[in-house]
């Protein structure tokens, strides 16, 4: 225990101090009562997993409304900041800068060559996959079907319905399987005209 060269007095103090102490059983009961009043500890999920793993969030309609309003607010503030990056105040007229287009005003043209087709329509996430909402028009002579429509900026998944049959866009990348047995195409829409 104690180094042999230690003084006997030091050894004696250490030996006495090592004697067990008599504790109050009531104090231990108080401690366990306090422990039982605590919320139970649970197995901890590592921080990285909490960040990385997808989780479902259950939001009440009111919370969703607040969230949406907050996002719109952030968009408005961010938009305002973007307008001010050139150093002008908001009130100053912006000379030579085209007005910002609403995000849904990016115009996109879809084209499909289908000389034999009787009817062609465009279906996608932007029209609720409704075959009646976006019919495509055929040029008189060459069998080219087109439609032009405003789309919001971002990624859109779509397909053509050729005489009632699903058909991917041969000039666009494919989207992952939609889980319903259909292959779809993808169009990334950026700000401005995407014609």
């Amino acid at each position, binding site marked *: 225990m104690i180094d042999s060269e230690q003084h006997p007095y030091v050894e004696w103090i250490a030996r006495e101090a090592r004697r067990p102490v008599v504790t109050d059983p009531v*104090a231990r009961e108080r*401690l366990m009562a*306090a422990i039982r009043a*605590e919320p139970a500890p649970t197995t901890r999920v590592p921080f990285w997993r909490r960040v990385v793993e997808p989780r479902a969030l259950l939001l009440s309609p009111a919370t969703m409304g607040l969230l949406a309003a907050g996002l719109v607010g952030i968009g408005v503030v961010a938009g305002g900041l973007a307008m001010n990056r050139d150093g002008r105040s908001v009130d100053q007229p912006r000379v030579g800068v085209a007005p910002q287009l609403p995000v849904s005003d990016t115009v996109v043209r879809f084209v499909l060559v289908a000389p034999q087709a009787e009817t062609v329509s465009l279906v996608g996430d932007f029209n609720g996959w409704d075959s009646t909402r976006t019919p495509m028009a055929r040029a008189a002579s060459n069998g080219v079907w087109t439609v032009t429509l405003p789309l919001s900026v971002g990624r859109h998944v779509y397909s053509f319905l050729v005489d009632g049959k699903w058909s991917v866009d041969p000039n666009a990348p494919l989207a992952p399987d939609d889980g319903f047995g259909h292959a779809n195409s993808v169009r990334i829409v950026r700000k401005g005209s995407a014609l």
Partner: protein
Amino acid sequence: MSDDAADVQRVLAGDVDAYAALVDRYYDRCARFAIRMLGNRDDAEDALQATFLRAYRALNRYQERDRFSAWLYRILVNQCRSIAARRAHRERVFVREEALLLNAPDRAVTWSGEDEEFVQRVLNELDPLLREAFLLKYIEEMSYEEMSALTGVGVSALKMRVKRACDRLRERWERIKND
């Protein structure tokens, strides 16, 4: 899996009574350190309550590769330090009074025999950092490596503290002998 690790798993699975087993296993040993370190039972009980409560709350952060006792002691040492710091003024007064007693001509006050109170008084004369190192080394009988892991203080610094604590006690003996 050790008894401690098994009990921790049971607590984390919702069995609060398993924590009582851990408390029973370590309470007296922790109490000895806290009493010796803080010098009185009231402060020691506060330190024990805080230690076991904090350990319970943080149990999901306990890593099984660590020994539970070492993890618990780390919390205990920190709690004792906090309580000692909060009551530093009172302790300073206490130590000053003890110093007066030590220098007093009445030998009966400084040498009252082999009782716990006397040993406690002697330990209280040590600077808290020296006392902590002395207790961990010679009362808890830890290695310097264990002490270092527990306190965050380097081994050489801890050796120095233990040596100084022993020197202080030896000096005290010399004073008593020569008086």
